[in-house]
């Protein structure tokens, strides 16, 4: 057994799986079974594990989480604050992991397009062909755990040449008002040739007495010449733990843009893997995290340049207050085949207090010789000259700081193409920044 893993809390989750398996007719029995076996082998990572050095998951595992039975109690007014993408969105509301059809709006889809719950699409050929094929459950225990508990989530499929112009909003609510809950959201998005779509995937909690745990996995296939935007927003409260993995497979000439916006959560880990699996792909990775209190936000990204003539561009920014901490680990692989690669990475952080910390680590591994790659990281205080300038014009110190922080954050948000989402995110960001004072 790998000494980097611990086993003390594992049994709890294995027992929970036993109950889950006997309750539900499983989504994909062989996959679930294989995954739970992988999870049993791997156990949970400890801080001895290089990839989890700064993120100790044991506080998460100490809790006793209940798995939802699918009972619904969510009302329309409960989700109003979370409707972030505008009225004309295609909306899928997931309540403790289960699609709530009453609150969802899935109508007037273009010909051949499927946007539905994963549970009801289980027998679809595309699901059978793609589900579990990309996310690395053999290496990542939280991916294995999520895969074992696959029951519901979003399934999005666009046939060749299909375009969905309306934003698709996958809204996940973890309702822990009655008891501490765990949810395992799973998304499968398969875009074929020449597709275009924009997805916002947002995570929220209701109830703040009990803790909650979201362990989500999204698999996204971006077909040839497809253009996919994916925005992951997370506003869960500080009693919530969130561990997610997003795996993206890009085919030739495709464009994939992702923004990962973290505005809450006690311990948050976002894993993002993008494989540029054929020539002439472009990906943009944007990230913003605003933390306060004792929060920990850890972003691990991996951009895997497998083929020539691709470009990746990464910008992650953080504003850290209180005693919070941040982690950024950005890996870029440029494989021997991947000549003419352009890969850029930047991580910028502002520490609002002396007790906030940031660990940032760029990791470029380049095996091709004709490439352009760069990375940069900065961590510092607010620009005191800029602060004085604003104050000398009559703007109060607190306001001036907020001004500068908001401008810093807006630099990430401006890259999101969904305008209603941009407009709704900015006030949330301002509120979170003001909390941190």
């Amino acid at each position, binding site marked *: 057994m790998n000494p980097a893993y611990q086993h003390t809390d594992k049994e709890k989750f294995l027992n929970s799986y036993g109950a889950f398996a006997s309750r539900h007719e499983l989504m994909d029995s062989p996959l679930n079974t294989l995954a739970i076996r992988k999870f049993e082998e791997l156990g949970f990572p400890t801080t001895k594990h290089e990839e989890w050095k700064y993120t100790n998951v044991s506080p998460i595992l100490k809790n006793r989480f209940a798995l939802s039975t699918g009972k619904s109690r969510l009302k329309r007014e409960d989700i109003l604050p979370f409707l972030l993408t505008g009225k004309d969105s295609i909306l899928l509301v997931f309540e403790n992991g289960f699609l709530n059809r009453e609150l969802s709006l899935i109508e007037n889809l273009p010909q051949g397009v499927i946007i539905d719950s994963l549970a009801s699409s289980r027998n679809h050929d595309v699901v059978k062909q793609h589900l579990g094929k990309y996310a690395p459950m053999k290496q990542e225990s939280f991916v294995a755990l999520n895969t074992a508990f696959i029951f519901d989530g979003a399934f999005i499929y666009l046939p060749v040449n299909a375009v969905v112009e309306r934003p698709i909003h996958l809204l996940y609510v973890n309702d822990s008002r009655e008891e501490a809950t765990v949810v395992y959201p799973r998304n499968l998005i398969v875009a074929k040739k020449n597709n275009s779509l924009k997805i916002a995937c947002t995570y929220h909690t209701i109830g703040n007495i009990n803790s909650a745990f979201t362990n989500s996995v999204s698999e996204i296939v971006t077909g040839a010449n497809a253009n996919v935007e994916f925005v992951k927003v997370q506003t869960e409260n500080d009693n919530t733990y969130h561990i997610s993995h997003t795996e993206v497979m890009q085919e030739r000439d495709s464009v994939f843009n992702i923004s990962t916006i973290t505005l809450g959560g006690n311990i948050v880990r976002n894993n993002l893997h993008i494989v540029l699996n054929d020539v002439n792909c472009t990906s943009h990775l944007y990230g913003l995290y605003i933390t306060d209190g004792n929060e920990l936000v850890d972003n691990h990204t991996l951009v895997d340049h497998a083929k020539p003539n691709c470009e990746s561009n990464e910008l992650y920014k953080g504003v850290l207050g209180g005693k919070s901490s941040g982690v950024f680990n950005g890996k870029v692989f440029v494989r021997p085949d991947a000549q003419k690669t352009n890969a850029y990475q930047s991580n910028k952080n502002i520490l609002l207090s002396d007790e906030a910390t940031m660990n940032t680590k760029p990791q470029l591994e380049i095996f091709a010789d004709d490439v352009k790659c760069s990375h940069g990281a900065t961590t510092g205080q607010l*620009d*005191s*000259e*800029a602060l*004085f*300038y*604003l*104050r*000398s*014009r*009559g*703007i*109060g*110190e607190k*306001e*001036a700081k907020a*001004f*500068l922080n*908001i*401008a*810093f954050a*807006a*630099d990430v948000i401006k890259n999101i193409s969904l305008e209603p989402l941009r407009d709704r995110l900015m006030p949330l960001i301002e509120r979170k920044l003001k909390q941190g004072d």
Partner: protein
Amino acid sequence: MLEIKNLQAKVEEKQILNGINLTVNPGEVHAIMGPNGSGKSTLASVLAGRDEYEVTGGEVVFRGENLLEMSPEDRARKGLFLAFQYPVEIPGVTNANFLKTALNEIRKANGQTPMDSKEFLQIMKEKMKLVEMDKAMTQRSVNEGFSGGEKKRNEVFQMAMLEPMLAVLDETDSGLDIDALRIVANGVNALRNQERSFIVITHYQRLLDYIVPDFVHVLYKGRIVKSGTKELAMELEAKGYDWIKEEVGIHI
């Protein structure tokens, strides 16, 4: 308007101001000249309330109140304005948003209601004309990517918008070509009136051809060693500073 008595200040353990005395009455324009390192910019920074400068003695009374006890924002709200020698770039904050916030903070502090967007845009339009500023500049981030001349014009534009009681111009003319200098000076002159006072800090007499001062002071080694009218500036231009150094002697 402003009364500076025996003002002394240091920065990073270095004493720079060694007892400045200056009285500025409403409507007056005072020019402060002096060689490099004489303390001109330090005086401007101390008046505006920059943190790094420590006042070690003396007092400054601005419109009847102790200026040195006020935060930088309170000084601005009370009617003080500093045109920066090196205006700061603030990415992500538009000029318009910045100015509207500043203007309304000042109005609020003075018991006025906030200005609505329509009225604000109207006034902004007028004042932009004053400094021949392009409309697009108001939607750009504050000073970001501005040329030296644009930055200085933006300072005068802000001054025009905020309508201070006392404006301190810290080498606003430095590095400007003659056209930009004329624009900046016109902006300042348009704001001159019976109540508003100016302290114009400059290296060059040239500026004073455009902004004609009521008084000229020579700052040297942290003290005002000579005061006069605009003729003094011309004399300095013709003869340099050496005669003043000799006149006041090396004992200071």
